[in-house]
């Protein structure tokens, strides 16, 4: 019985690969976009402009304080009513990138704030411009502190990507739903789905742990 189910599961491996591919593609694109936007937001958040900082803070709070599923529904079902048509993939990317950007913004901002004032003063006193201070002095030190939580955030992002199956994208989780209709063994199917996610996330978890122990190193830049 189990053996038969297993065989028909093996038969659906092209679908599973497609799902895994979709999950990885969604995660990877959102991870890159979210990181870029998150860094920009984090730098702006700690910059001198109070208004910009407040607006970003409010947006981050809003996104962090609402369920991701609700955010996806708003983007996919409500935006078209305002005349913005999005396919499911684009909607998923937007929602995931936005979520990642908001979390990464806070991580980066916390890292920047943790750099001692004396460092900024030394850079200021030597005549470095605003961007040079950020690029040469503040960000490298902020990165040392931000990197472990940043990688941890990537793991969360990959897992959150499973929510996009709710708007019909055939990612790993949705493949699970499709397969379980043919192979009526939910435990087996979703165990395999879980393993799929774990295989993608585990290297990142290991990386985060390694970076964290590197943080204890007294000096030098973090090298990946």
């Amino acid at each position, binding site marked *: 019985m189990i053996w038969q189910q297993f065989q028909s599961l093996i038969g659906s491996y092209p679908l599973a690969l497609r799902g895994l591919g979709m999950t990885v593609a969604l995660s990877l694109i959102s991870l890159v976009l979210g990181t870029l936007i998150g860094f920009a937001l984090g730098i702006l958040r700690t910059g001198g402009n109070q208004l910009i900082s407040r607006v970003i803070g409010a947006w981050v709070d809003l996104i962090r304080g609402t369920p991701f599923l609700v955010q996806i529904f708003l983007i996919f079902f409500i935006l078209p009513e305002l005349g913005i048509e999005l396919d499911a993939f684009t909607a998923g990317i937007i929602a995931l990138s936005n979520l990642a950007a908001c979390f990464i913004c806070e991580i980066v901002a916390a890292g920047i704030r943790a750099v*001692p004032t*004396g*460092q900024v*003063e*030394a*850079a*200021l*006193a*030597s*005549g*470095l*411009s605003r961007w*040079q201070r950020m690029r*040469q*002095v503040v960000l*490298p*030190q902020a990165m*040392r502190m931000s990197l472990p939580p940043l990688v941890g955030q990537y793991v969360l992002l990959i897992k959150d990507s499973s929510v996009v199956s709710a708007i019909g994208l055939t990612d790993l989780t949705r493949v699970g739903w499709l397969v379980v209709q043919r192979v009526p063994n939910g435990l087996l199917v979703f165990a395999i789905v879980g393993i799929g996610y774990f295989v993608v996330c585990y290297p990142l978890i290991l990386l985060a742990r390694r970076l964290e122990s590197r943080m204890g190193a*007294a*000096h*030098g*830049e973090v090298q990946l």
Partner: protein
Amino acid sequence: MIEFRGVNKWFGALHVLKDITLSVEPREVVVVCGPSGSGKSTLIRCVNGLESTRDGVLVVDGHRVGDPTTDMTELRAEIGFVFQSFNLYPHKTALENVTLAPIHVRKIARSAAEEAGRELLARVGLADKFNAYPSELSGGQQQRVAIARCLCMRPKIMLFDEPTSALDPEMISEVLDVMVSVAEEGMTMMVVTHEMGFARRVAQRVVFMDAGAIVESGTPEEFFSNPRTDRSRAFLGKILRH
């Protein structure tokens, strides 16, 4: 070179600089001393705009500090500042600390900056520490790197904010020796310090501050042998006792 005319500063309700008038000539070395909280650090932090002033005029190297038309970034490049807590960049080696601003602010070629940096580090006695990170250096060594970092910009003015206060006693003289040699080369310097030996050796003038005001100003000989006010006598009594 540096001129304060009627400068005032408040931290909230606290009047930290009271009507400061002081002028420092080119090549002059002025030591600023006074009890803690007297405003001496605030005074020199105003010179390169790390602190803002509220009224009065402060002219440095011909530029008005705090004036919207003054490019403070440009002015700061001409002013070296040595901090009490060194503030070396922990993610950069000694040589990288020294060459960062010359490369990015002065736009000097990396090779030329590194050559100048090695020369300066050798001059402050750290020829064997080019590639050491700040965490691998003692306090005295870090402060000497910090001085070399300022010198590598070829500044017109150097400001020292209690450069030896965070050091273990046995490391104070190695830093003071470097400062003396910088002074003897004719650098314009304002030095906040309680190292009266240094003041006697190289300062043309000692300025004594208390409660945000300049109470007394004179040559080291005058100030040490014949302090004119009760407050300066009390202060000298405390720091010279041991």
